[in-house]
């Protein structure tokens, strides 16, 4: 009994593959989502994340591989025989039914008693703060309200897993921000596994317990948002999640727990072994803009810190901080973000500057030329 309870809401994808008329949408995907987890599939359009979701929902049949829900193989089952529910990108509310009947649709299919349906619909509408809207038609609701009806309609069935396909994509920024927190609150309240598809890295990081970054039908990295942000496994992940400064370099020495990398332009950087994800000799070394401190080039570098020198091209004041565009060694554009805490030293365009950062804030990925062109949306 205990063991069964623990697998309730567990999603396993084993060697999942989907080919549409010779175009590979998803390539040998293995993924495990823990019960009660808020898990996001993150990636640019065309990366296969929606196709993956649709295979879990039963709307696409995998070319190869298996989908397991709570330990049960559901690969061949039609959508109506899977204990998952979906919140569609277009909401897909039934226009001919009112809010109550939309939400009650799944319960009516289970032939539940009338008063139970009434009670559960009321609870679901209460959960999404739409009590009193029972008799409205979907066309009489705003986008955000329609979105919440779609959520209630799925959640009311207490599925083992809730699939969400870019559910906030059609909402404007302000409502989207509010709905992100709302979704997170609801997920914590109901404790159902949420599998969330999005191309918005900020959205994924705000809500997810863990996320998978996908690209060209493959998973590039799986981890909690902090790990994926601080330790990107590939150059693509580094570029897709937030801004990164990437410097090309060559591995010189791998002893004493520190890896020494000779950077373009001459300076030598040290990276702790556990932060080193590269495999070859040529690697890319990355630092997030907010981890770098700017100082005049003649000031001494703190002991143990990494540094490169550059030429300040542009300084922008953005209220909460300053953003600097710097031309680094070999012409590499670098970006530095400094929090506006009132201790700013004055730098102006044309100044020579030294960029200093802690080796702990350095990550290293393999050098994949041309990957940076994949414009994240």
């Amino acid at each position, binding site marked *: 009994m205990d063991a069964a309870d623990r697998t309730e809401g567990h999603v396993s994808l084993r060697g999942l593959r989907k080919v549409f008329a010779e175009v590979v*949408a998803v390539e040998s995907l293995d993924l495990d989502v823990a019960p009660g987890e808020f898990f996001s599939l993150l*990636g640019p*359009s*065309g*990366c*296969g*994340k*929606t*196709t*993956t*979701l649709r295979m879990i*929902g*039963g*709307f696409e049949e995998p070319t190869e591989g298996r989908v397991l829900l709570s330990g049960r193989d559901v690969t061949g089952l*039609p*959508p*109506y025989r899977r204990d*998952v*529910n*979906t919140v*569609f*990108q*277009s*909401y*897909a*509310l*039934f*226009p*001919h039914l009112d809010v109550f009947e939309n939400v009650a*649709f*799944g319960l009516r*299919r*289970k032939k539940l008693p009338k008063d139970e349906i009434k009670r559960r619909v009321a609870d679901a509408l209460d959960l999404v703060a739409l009590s009193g809207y029972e008799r409205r*038609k*979907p*066309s009489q609701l705003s*986008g955000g309200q*329609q979105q919440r009806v779609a959520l209630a*309609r*799925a959640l009311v*069935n207490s599925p083992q897993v809730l699939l969400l*396909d*870019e559910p906030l*994509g*059609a909402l404007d920024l302000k409502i989207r921000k509010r709905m992100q927190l709302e979704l997170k609150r609801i997920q914590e309240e109901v404790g159902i596994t949420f599998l969330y*598809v999005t*191309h918005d890295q900020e959205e994924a990081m705000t809500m997810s317990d863990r996320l998978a970054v*996908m690209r060209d039908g493959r998973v590039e990295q799986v981890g909690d948002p902090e790990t994926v942000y601080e330790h990107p496994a590939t150059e693509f992940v580094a570029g897709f999640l937030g801004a990164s400064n990437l410097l090309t370099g060559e591995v010189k020495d791998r002893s004493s727990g520190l890896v020494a990398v000779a950077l373009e332009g001459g300076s030598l950087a040290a990276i702790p072994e556990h932060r080193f994800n590269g495999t070859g000799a040529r690697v890319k070394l990355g630092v997030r803009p907010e981890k770098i401190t700017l100082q005049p080039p003649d000031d001494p570098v703190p002991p143990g810190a990494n540094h490169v020198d550059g030429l300040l091209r542009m300084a922008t004041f953005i209220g909460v901080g300053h953003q600097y565009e710097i031309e680094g060694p070999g012409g590499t554009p670098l970006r530095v973000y400094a929090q506006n805490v009132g201790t700013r030293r004055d730098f102006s365009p044309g100044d020579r500057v030294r960029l200093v950062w802690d080796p702990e804030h350095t990550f290293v990925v393999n050098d994949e030329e041309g990957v940076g062109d994949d414009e994240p949306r």
Partner: protein
Amino acid sequence: MSAVATRAEDRPIAAERAAAPRKRRRRGRKGGLLTVYFWLMMIYTVVPIVFMIIYGFNRAPAERVTFAWQGFTLEWYKHLFDLSDLTAALITSLEIAVLSGLIATALGTPMALAMSRYRYRGRGATDLVVFTDIAAPSVVVGASLLSFFILLNIPRGFGTILITHVAFNIAFVVVTVRARLAGVDTSLEEAAQDLGATPWVTFWRVTLPLLMPGVISAFLLSFALSIDDFIITSFVNGQTLTFPLWIWGAVKVGIPPQVFVMGTLIFVGGVLIAVANVVASRRQRVQTIAVNAPTRVPREG
């Protein structure tokens, strides 16, 4: 002094106000030719019908339609069903129109669904058949059906008329329902299945209700096509007379005014139903558009 100032200020506003209708009038004059054209077309299409309606009220001493105005009477409305064979023909026509409309809609709706929702072998051929069915001249269809019935030794009469009308109506049903189906988001059907509805339940609870305006239009179109079909029916009717066939026979000896009255009633009924359908489907379309608006976002991944 101040009064003068105000008046001066008023002047440009007044000028503007005067200019506004002039501008509108000029735009109206520009479209004047179009308006004239519009009314000429209206008259061209409507005059024969109006004529029929008016002469349904004409006193006609010989009980035959005459186009000299003899004075107003409701006589023909009172004695509408006095000519028993005309009444029988009208009833036959109505029966065939309703039955063939229902059967064609019942057969054509699933066909439209299959043709636009599923990929199957022979889909292209089905498309072609539907098109041919609409494009084929009535004379050809009628003649071929007649030879077909003779070949199979099927006695001509009510049954063969019904079969024939169902056959030519199906194509129009398919076309009409498919047009409506194009506006129904497939994710609605997916959502229904996601919520536990089998394909059967999905059809009855979601697809069909959303298709209903199209299905009703298809039925009305079938009804209309059936009730005034003359050419094809004349090949396969045997001894059975439909309303148009009876009138055709009567033309040689003069049309009884009841024909105009029946025509008027059929016309008024048709217009009322058409208006009701337009109103209903417009109301539903507004809803569907509002709900489907977010679909414009391109599908991801």
